[in-house]
Structures are given as C-alpha cells and as structure tokens.
C-alpha cells in the first residue's frame, strides 16, 4: 500500500490542530469570565463570587496546561510535515510565532503562577491584576496566531526572491487584509464558547437542585455575557464574510454550495447538499427559496456566484467547506436562539425556573466548541489547494519524508492525545460532580498523580477551605 505523504501530513496537522484549538478557545473564554468574576468579588465581597472563581480557575488551569503542550507540537509539525512551507514562509511566519511566545506566553506564564498559587499570598488587587494579565496574555497569543494564519490566507507585505519569501513591509505582514476581520470573530467565538460551557455546568447544578446559589449566579452571568457576545459575533461574522468574499472568493463560493457562475435569481439558500466535484454539480440539495439572495446578497433577487468561477485546479473541496461553514452557522443560529429565549425568560423572571431551558443549556454546553472547530475547518479547507494563498500549494509544501514516518507519528499523536483528552475529561467531570465546595483556595500539591483523584484529597481541600459554602 502506498502512503501519500501529502494526505498523511494534512491528516496529522488537522488532527493535532483540531485537538489543540479546543483548549485555547476555552482558555480565552474562561480567562475573561474569571476577570469579571474576580472583579465582582472585589467589588461586592460576596463569597459566592470567590467560590465561582476558585471552581473555574481549576478547570481553566487544566485547559491552559493541555493547550500549551498541544500547541508546542504544532510548531514541530511545521518541520515534520511541512518543511518546505517552513523553509519558504519562515521569514514571515517565524517572527510572528516567536513574538507570540515573547509577548503573550511569557506574560501568561509569569502571571499564571500568581493567579493559581497566590490567592491568599498576595493582596487581592495584585491577584486581580494577575488574572487580568493572564486574560490579556491569552488574547495577545490569539492575536499573533490569527495574524500568522491570516497572512497565510491573505498574504501581504512580501516579495518572492529566488523562490523564497522576503518581507518588505512588516506592518502589512502583521496587519494583513483579513487579520482585523478574523481576530474579533475568533475572540468572540472564544467568549461564547466559554460562556456556554459555564452556563451548561451551572444549569446542570440547578436541574439537580445542588449548589443552587452557585448555579444561579453562573447561569445568569454567563448567559448574559453570551448574549452580548453573540450579537457582536453575528455583526463581525458578516463583516468577515464580506472580507473573505473579496479576498478568497472560491472559499465562500464553496461555503454556499453553488456551482454555476451565477445562481438563479432570486437565489435559494442551500441547507444540505450532496456535491459532485468531478461533474461540478450537486446531486441533491435541500434549499429555501429567496433566502440565499436575502442573506448572501442583502437583496431580494441578487444571484450568488458559484464555484465554476474558479478554475478547477484552484478549487477547494466543496463538501468540506460547505459543511464546515454550515455547521458553524447552524450552531450560531441555535446559540442566538438560546440567548434570545434567555432574555424573554429573564423578562418573565423565569430564567432559573424553566426546566426545558436549563436542559437546553446543558445540551448546548459543547456548542461553542463545535462551532469554533467547524469555523476553523471552513477557514483551512476553504484555503485549499493553497497553504499560502496564491503563492504556495499545499502539495508543494510537504516535507520530503516517507509516508511511513508520518503514519507512525500520526499514530503516536492519536495515542498520546487520546490520553490527554481522557485525563482532561476525567478530571473535569470529577471536579464538576464534586461541585464548587470542593474547589481548593489555590492549586495544591496532592503528593502524587495517583492520589490526585482520590475522594479524600478533594474532601480535605473542602474541609480546609470552607469559604463560600452555601
């Protein structure tokens, strides 16, 4: 059997980056939430805020740790799977990733120690500053990575000399045409993801009739946070759509599932398609008439451009882009529905007492993660066949290594990441099941990893630090 290095390198990077993106998204969202919670605690001195802070700080710390470890692997994969990309694009991408480490990682890592271990060792204001700095660090980190990735989507500020990229204008490399549209979209996605995660856990406590003060406060704050973020997300999402339509038309043509150069007028909106890339047509479509014109062209009869406008050898795979985009968009609609319902229930004073809504919140706990991953699939599969848009094809960027090397490392990554996710989920579910009262004041050494999960270890923490008990 012949192992295609290009396919394996892509599968490997897709797997590791899909796994990785879950954790920074969660970290950015939770860090912002922790800033608000600690700010409220400082302002009101209500113990429940400290309890919420302590509980979510533990989960944040675990997510942060896994995010860092899985992020480091990605840098090595540039060499392992995409050495030619690293060689050609290194002068532009390398400094940005280096700057991420310098400006964001160092900031996060330095203040994370105070945040995790210093709750009663430094003053409350200094601790709050540490939380703010960690949150700022997560956002700075995202902005550098988004800048690097956006440069791959819409490269600018460079010249090609002797087959290599030479930077001619650093400002244009960093502030490339899609960066300022993609950055707020990603940050909002992280805030929404964190909010729905927190809301789901709070709703679960309310449904079980446990830790109700904690549950009510977390549901109220997180869904309120999500309401504002969701509205902002729809707004910036539309601006990003326009930007991508301008700079990467083939991506958006594939995302909407139209083949012909111009669709019918008025255009329908495609919900489900079975695309046939070879014959450049859809075998099946489920659509709503006129809605395509309204949503995509903001008119009642505007036609939508299809993928045949792009030469075949420059087309992305429609199915991947279409379903990535539509999964993200469907999740966004569901989340917007939830936040609108939350406003209505709040108006009726029934936010904490409507069982079906609380159940919906629990079901929607992973909604933000699903939408974020789907959004990244749209961005990355829609850029194909390019790794650097219009400059370097993915097929030409792959390392000259045998397929067996990539396969064996892929198997190793799947095994190790499987252990990571299992450990993360086991610890997180146990922390959630034990409840906020078991959350220690600050991170404490338990003696050994073997003992860390034992009931008496968690209970000891609860007895030692009873602050904020209901």
């Amino acid at each position, binding site marked *: 059997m012949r192992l295609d290095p290009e396919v394996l390198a892509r599968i490997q990077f897709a797997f590791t980056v899909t796994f990785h993106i879950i954790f920074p998204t969660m970290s950015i969202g939770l860090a912002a939430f922790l800033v608000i919670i600690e700010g409220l605690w400082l302002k009101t001195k209500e113990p429940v805020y400290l309890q919420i802070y302590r509980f979510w700080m533990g989960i944040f710390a675990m997510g942060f740790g896994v995010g860092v470890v899985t992020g480091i692997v990605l840098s090595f994969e540039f060499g392992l799977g995409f050495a030619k990309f690293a060689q050609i694009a290194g002068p532009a991408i390398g400094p940005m990733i280096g700057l991420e480490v310098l400006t964001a990682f160092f900031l996060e890592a330095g203040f994370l120690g105070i945040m995790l271990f210093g709750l009663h060792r430094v003053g409350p204001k200094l601790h709050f500053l540490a939380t703010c700095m960690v949150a700022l660090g997560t956002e700075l980190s995202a902005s550098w990575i988004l800048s690097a990735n956006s440069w791959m989507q819409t490269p600018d500020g460079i010249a090609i000399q002797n087959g290599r990229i030479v930077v001619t204008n650093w400002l244009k490399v960093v502030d490339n045409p899609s960066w300022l549209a993609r950055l707020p979209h990603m940050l909002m996605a992280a805030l929404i993801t964190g909010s729905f995660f927190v809301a789901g856990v709070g709703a679960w406590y309310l449904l079980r009739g446990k830790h109700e003060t904690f549950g009510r406060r977390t549901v109220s704050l997180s869904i*309120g946070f999500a309401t504002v973020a969701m509205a902002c997300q*729809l*707004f910036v999402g*539309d601006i990003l759509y326009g930007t991508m339509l301008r700079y990467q038309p083939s991506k958006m043509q594939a995302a909407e599932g139209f083949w012909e150069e111009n669709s019918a007028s008025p255009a329908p909106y495609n919900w489900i398609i079975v695309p046939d890339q070879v014959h450049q047509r859809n075998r099946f479509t489920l659509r709503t008439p006129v809605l395509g014109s*309204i*949503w995509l062209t903001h008119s009642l009869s505007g036609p939508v451009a299809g993928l045949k406008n792009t030469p075949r050898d420059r087309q992305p795979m429609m199915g991947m882009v279409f379903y990535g985009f539509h999964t993200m968009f469907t999740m966004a609609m569901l989340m917007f529905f939830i936040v609108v319902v939350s406003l*209505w229930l709040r108006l009726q*004073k*029934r936010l*904490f007492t409507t069982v079906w809504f609380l159940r919906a919140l629990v079901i929607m706990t992973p909604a933000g993660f699903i939408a974020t991953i789907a959004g990244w699939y749209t961005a990355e599969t829609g850029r194909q066949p390019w790794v650097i848009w219009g400059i370097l094809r993915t097929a030409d960027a792959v390392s000259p290594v045998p397929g067996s090397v990539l396969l064996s490392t892929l198997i190793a990554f799947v095994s190790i990441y499987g252990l990571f996710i299992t450990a993360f989920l086991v610890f997180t579910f146990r922390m959630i099941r034990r409840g906020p009262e078991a959350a220690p004041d600050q991170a404490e050494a338990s003696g050994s990893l073997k003992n860390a999960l034992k009931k008496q270890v968690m209970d000891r923490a609860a007895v030692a630090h009873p602050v904020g008990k209901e």
Partner: protein
Amino acid sequence: MREVVRRAADTPLGGALTGATPFSLRRAMGVVLTTLLGVTFFNALIGVFGLPAAVIALLLFIALAVLIFRRPQTERARQ
C-alpha cells in the same frame, strides 16, 4: 394534563415549573413577539438591512440585554 404537571413537579425544579407557567394567551403572544423580534434582530445583525442598520441593531440589542439583565429573577417558586 394533571399527570404531566404532577410528574414535572417531582423534578427538582418542578415546583417552579408548575407554579410559574400556566398557559395563557398573553404568554403565547409573548412567544410570537419574541420570535419575531429575534428573527428581526438576527437579520439586522447579519447585515440584511445594511451596515448602518446592523450597527443600530447591535447597540439596541446590547442595551436591551443590559436592561433586562438587571431584572431580579424568581429563585424557586416552591421550596
């Protein structure tokens, strides 16, 4: 119907459910109005009515959310 209500009351929040949600025309109208408002805001925010309308919708939605957020909530209808 009574059986459904009784079963709902057995859940931890069931008392709240039974005590707070009798069906009424007013509530049905509230659902319809909320749906219409939600659909209008959604379309405005994704730019269907143009950028200025999207900006206004965003500010209006956030202001509305902040105003409603301050409303005190029923914690439990039945202890």
